[in-house]
């Protein structure tokens, strides 16, 4: 993480969210209150509006602003902030309900003033929004459908919240308060237009074409993409992009995939994708020539961020090999001679994705590969089962100080490896992993 960049963007974001409330606090005369709890509740309401509005900024995938953190952690922040925002909304409501119940009468949607019904609708939609995200898989909502539902719920909840604040109209007589609120709303509208209209429009102007669909071991496929009429972009090995295949850039059917190619090659992009039962099960049938749109590069999971490292340890499970392969290929293309370790968990020897490529890379790099198989073949002398702490210790042995570790695969494996590596004296700041599983 680049500390100065991260601090700058974090402070800017904090200011953006806190400004409406700061204006509220400083802009009004002293002693015009309606009671401590009443004004406190109103303050919480304004704060909640700012937090929920700020959520749109976080998911707009601004590359420059998210790069210092890694965009995956921005989504973690987004999730936590949703909880914070909802708590503020609920507190705002409950304080009124407990101390000023007359302000909430009548509650029936048609009898109450429209702006009060809008406030209740916003609260209900925020609960739905967060519930449908936290329990998407439990509720069986398919990812693509969830994304559409999420966007519609978020925008409508925000519209209702704004109608509510506007309708109630408290404190809006103060010029600055009104101006800041208007500016805030204008920015939100502009942001939604940018994400939903301008960004797809920009993506449409830089299309890619699928030029190769290559089967790999373990039900995986490698897709090769060439820029169509533009020069593409450079990425850091280990990064990923959101890609949509054969659909319009406006229909929001895009998924994050790691680049598996060397970043030193400048003639297109490669993604290795495993058939996982969802839409990826059709990836092998993609016809050559299919148009693709790529939003990237994103992510901070890259050896290039740690040039001072004395060596690297990679732990991959299944298709988690894709970003590792990108890093290994790039290091090989650069003639890097630092010591490297790769521990790779697969189901069986036949299903080790990119097995032959890893063999070739071992010849070009100072690389020790440890395969861990759940179902080993006969006379297998290597590691058996799931990667564990003892295997990592055996593999790393007397690894030099100052190595950095990259973990990519199932969550329990990554957590196990984190504990094991820390127990071996490797500082948490030198252990890196993508926080996938965004919803």
């Amino acid at each position, binding site marked *: *993480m680049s500390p100065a960049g991260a601090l700058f963007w*974090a402070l800017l974001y*904090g200011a953006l*969210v*806190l400004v409406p*409330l*700061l204006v*509220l*606090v400083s802009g*009004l005369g*002293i*002693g*015009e*209150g*309606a*009671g*401590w*709890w*009443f*004004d*406190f509740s*109103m*303050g*919480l309401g*304004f*704060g*909640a509006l*700012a*937090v929920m509005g700020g959520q749109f900024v976080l998911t707009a995938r601004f590359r420059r602003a998210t790069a210092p*953190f*890694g965009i995956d*952690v*921005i989504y*973690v*922040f987004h999730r*936590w*902030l949703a*909880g*914070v925002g909802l*708590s*503020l909304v609920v507190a705002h409501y409950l304080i009124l309900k407990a101390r*000023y119940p*007359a*302000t*909430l*009468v*009548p509650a029936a949607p048609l009898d109450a*003033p429209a*702006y*009060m019904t809008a406030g209740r609708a916003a609260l209900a939609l925020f609960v739905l929004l967060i519930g449908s995200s936290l329990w998407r898989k439990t509720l069986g909502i398919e990812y693509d459908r969830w994304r559409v539902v999420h966007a519609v719920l978020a925008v409508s909840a925000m519209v209702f919240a704004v109608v509510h604040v*506007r*309708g*109630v*109209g408290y404190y*809006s*007589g103060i010029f600055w308060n009104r101006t800041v609120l208007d500016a805030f709303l204008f920015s939100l509208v502009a942001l939604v237009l940018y994400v939903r209209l301008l960004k797809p429009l920009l993506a449409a102007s830089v299309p890619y074409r699928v030029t190769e669909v290559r089967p790999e071991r373990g039900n995986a496929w490698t897709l090769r993409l060439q820029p169509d009429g533009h020069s593409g972009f450079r990425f850091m090995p280990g990064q990923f992009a959101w890609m949509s295949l054969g659909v319009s850039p406006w229909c929001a059917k895009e998924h994050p995939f790691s680049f598996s190619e060397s970043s030193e090659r400048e003639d297109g992009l490669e993604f290795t994708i495993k058939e996982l039962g969802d839409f990826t099960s059709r990836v092998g049938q993609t016809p050559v020539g299919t148009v693709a749109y790529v939003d990237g590069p994103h992510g901070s999971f890259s050896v290039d961020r740690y040039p001072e490292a004395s060596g690297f340890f990679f732990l991959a499970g299944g298709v988690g090999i894709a970003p590792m392969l990108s890093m290994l290929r790039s290091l090989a293309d650069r003639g890097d001679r630092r010591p490297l370790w790769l521990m790779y968990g697969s189901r069986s020897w036949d299903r080790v994705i990119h097995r032959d490529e890893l063999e070739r890379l071992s010849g070009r790099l100072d690389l020790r590969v440890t395969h861990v198989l759940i179902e080993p073949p006969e006379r297998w002398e290597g590691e058996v089962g799931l990667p564990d702490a003892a295997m990592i210790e055996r593999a790393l042995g007397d690894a030099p100080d100052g190595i950095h570790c990259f973990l990519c695969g199932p969550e329990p494996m990554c957590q196990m490896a984190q504990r094991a590596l820390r127990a071996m004296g490797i500082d*948490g*700041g030198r*252990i890196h992993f993508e*926080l996938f599983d965004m919803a």
Partner: protein
Amino acid sequence: MREPAARLGAVSLGVAIVALAAGFAHRQNAERAVIATPRDPAVLDAPVGAAAPERGRGLFTDLGCARCHSVAGAGNPRSPLDGVGARRTAADIRARIVGAPTVRNEIPASAGRAKQNLAEAMSLSDLDALTAFLSTLR
């Protein structure tokens, strides 16, 4: 490392908002303004109408006036009506209950609309009763 930092960031932002809201509430209520209650004989002697203030008190509750106003601490404290009978004439109170054009620019638009809806639903005798009740708040 990064996940706990994100969590800490989100929670800190929440704490900052709660603190700012508390600061706002404190500042707003630091020196509660004393509502002036001028004992203007002209106001006191103004005709209140024949309606019974007690019926007006009931209407105040039934019509949901407490959603936006409070009396003796009950209801929405943003716009207290304590002492309104001393500050305003009965005719003025009446105009404000129904959101008459003469007072429309003094009240928020949403309140103006709510008051007009109220006016349409109220009989003249109700309006007299409510005016009578509010005039007793001195």
